[in-house]
């Protein structure tokens, strides 16, 4: 097996808030393999977005890193300064796209100028050359009529087009890892479908690794190879996409899968999940899922379970005896 491109070990991260310390990430272990689309799924507040931003060192002022390491091709990103991250990693090694495509583009510049700005840094040369590259980049994300598009301002584009321009912009510097944080949440279904197809094809063509952060199980089933299920700041299961849907092991993964609205779901067989996501200021001790878990045992309250391999490429963090 290849070594992972991104390897997060025992990451602990807190936010200081008015009411106390919020333990957003609590012993997170995540390995993203080269060339895969790796899904990171969980409900609001589980820490999935924070994880993505932490890889790139994008912190709010009240963030406290409590421990752990983030290895990118073996280098610990947490030990880098903001300057080093900016110079050596952001954009050219690791790119990131966000939920709201509108706010990521500069509203006062034409698409052409924004693309050129990026290209100039990484591929200096004649303007005509760069222009060809820009058109190729826009073609690669299946945007129609790239010549005309280059002359437009962000506000003249729809949300789906902006999100694709963002991809083109990010891929222009040929990063090896793309972190996509809920990129389709703000888009309509037909636009989302177009976007997913473009992203899937691109990934095959240029062999980029994608960490795809989402809360949408249906999107996961469309695009991901491997999936990490996150609950209250920890990975509870790391599994191939097929196995997540066909034989989820962790009780929380099972709930998530059963809550998906499929063609056979109706109001009577709709699965209701009891309890709710815990607050992360004074979270439950031990396994944070134990208050909602039907398999709860005494040791679950004692300490958090670690990820154990139950099958090749399938890890679960649970004290349940029958892990299958």
């Amino acid at each position: 097996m290849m070594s992972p491109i991104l390897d997060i070990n025992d990451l602990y991260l807190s936010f200081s808030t008015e009411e106390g310390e919020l333990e957003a990430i609590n012993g997170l272990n995540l390995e993203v393999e080269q060339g895969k689309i790796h899904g990171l799924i969980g409900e609001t507040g589980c820490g999935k977005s924070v994880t993505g931003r932490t890889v790139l060192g994008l912190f709010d002022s009240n963030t406290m890193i409590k421990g752990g390491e983030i290895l990118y091709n073996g280098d610990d990103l947490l030990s880098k300064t903001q300057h080093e991250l900016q110079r050596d990693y952001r954009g050219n090694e690791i790119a990131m796209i966000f939920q709201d495509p509108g706010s990521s583009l500069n509203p006062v510049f034409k698409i052409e100028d924004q693309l050129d700005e990026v290209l100039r840094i990484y591929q200096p040369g004649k303007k005509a050359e760069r222009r060809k590259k820009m058109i190729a980049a826009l073609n690669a994300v299946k945007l129609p009529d790239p010549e005309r598009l280059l002359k437009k301002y962000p506000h003249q584009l729809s949300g789906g087009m902006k999100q694709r321009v963002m991809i083109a912009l990010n891929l222009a510097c040929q990063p090896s890892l793309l972190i996509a944080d809920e990129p389709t949440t703000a888009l309509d279904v037909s636009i989302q479908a177009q976007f997913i197809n473009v992203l899937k094809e691109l990934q095959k063509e240029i062999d980029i690794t994608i960490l795809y952060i989402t809360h949408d199980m249906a999107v996961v089933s469309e695009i991901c190879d491997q999936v990490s299920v996150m609950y209250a700041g920890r990975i509870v299961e790391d599994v191939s996409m097929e196995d997540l849907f066909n034989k989820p092991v962790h009780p929380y993964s099972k709930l998530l899968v059963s809550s998906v609205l499929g063609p056979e779901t109706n109001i009577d067989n709709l699965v209701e999940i009891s309890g709710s996501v815990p607050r992360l200021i004074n979270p439950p001790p031990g396994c944070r899922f134990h208050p909602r878990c039907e398999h709860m045992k005494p040791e679950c309250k004692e300490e958090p379970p670690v990820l154990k391999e139950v099958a090749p490429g399938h890890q679960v963090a649970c004290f349940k005896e029958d892990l299958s």
Partner: protein
Amino acid sequence: MNSTEVILQADKIQKIFPSKEGDVRAVDGVNLDLISGEVFGLVGESGCGKSTLSRLLLRLLDSSGGSIKFKGEDITGFDKKQLKMLRRQMSLVFQDPHTSLNPRMTIYDNLARPFKVHNLAEGREEITVEIVRLLKSMGLQAEHMIRYPHELSGGQKQRVVVARALAVDPEVVFLDEPTSALDVSVQAKILKLLAKIKDEKDLTYFFISHDINLIRVISDRIGVMYLGRMVEQGEVAGMFKEPMHPYTRGLFSSVPEPTPARKLDSVLMGEVPSPVNPPSGCHFHPRCPEKMAICEQESPVFNYRQGRKVACHLYNLD
């Protein structure tokens, strides 16, 4: 109750918003029958006019043309007093529970308003008892009364919003994306609760959503809107089995299915055009894979074809 009694009927209803670039026909001649006791699901992409349509039917917005009948009575010309009575018969649940409760009022005061406005209960005692009854039926506790909205979670707030909509004891409840701001585990609870209340109180639901999987779960009949017009309407099972309008087909096939083996194949291409200058004839023709010459010139009539209402020239030929 007669199962096919039409409780709310819209006939060629229209809403035109003037804008700097020209008139926007947000709702452009929509016909709709809401049958008493059903869940009618309305789907469409953003900007198709589904929220505007619901505000027109509720008379929260004045229509620019057409008529709306509630139980056979034309409500488009209702005056203030009549409208106030109408507010007791139709109510609205919003998408974002964080913004739809008055942040400076406690839950008690938020919920007491409908009772006070319509004199449904008198005095603090009676109102309190009513509110606690409402809260309990929503799975909340009496103690939530003295909280402010920001002290409640998203799911709890949405229960309060539903409670407020039910306080007036309405017959029709409009639900505008009531679960899209909530997590999956909370969403299922709210949907179950809504279904339970509907059966208990014999309500009619008008359910708006962009989530097609969700609409399929909750609705009896659905309507599909595109650029201000209704393009197809019918029973939920039939619609999903065999969508007739090319837009419906494209829209449904764009929905990611949570089944690992099945992937998106034929997705809808292109984007929704600007509503200021919509395409001539059938608004959908520039994106339609089955476009014919007539589609550019004539708007198709929305009518019954093969037991379902469709607005498409394809079905004029047979």
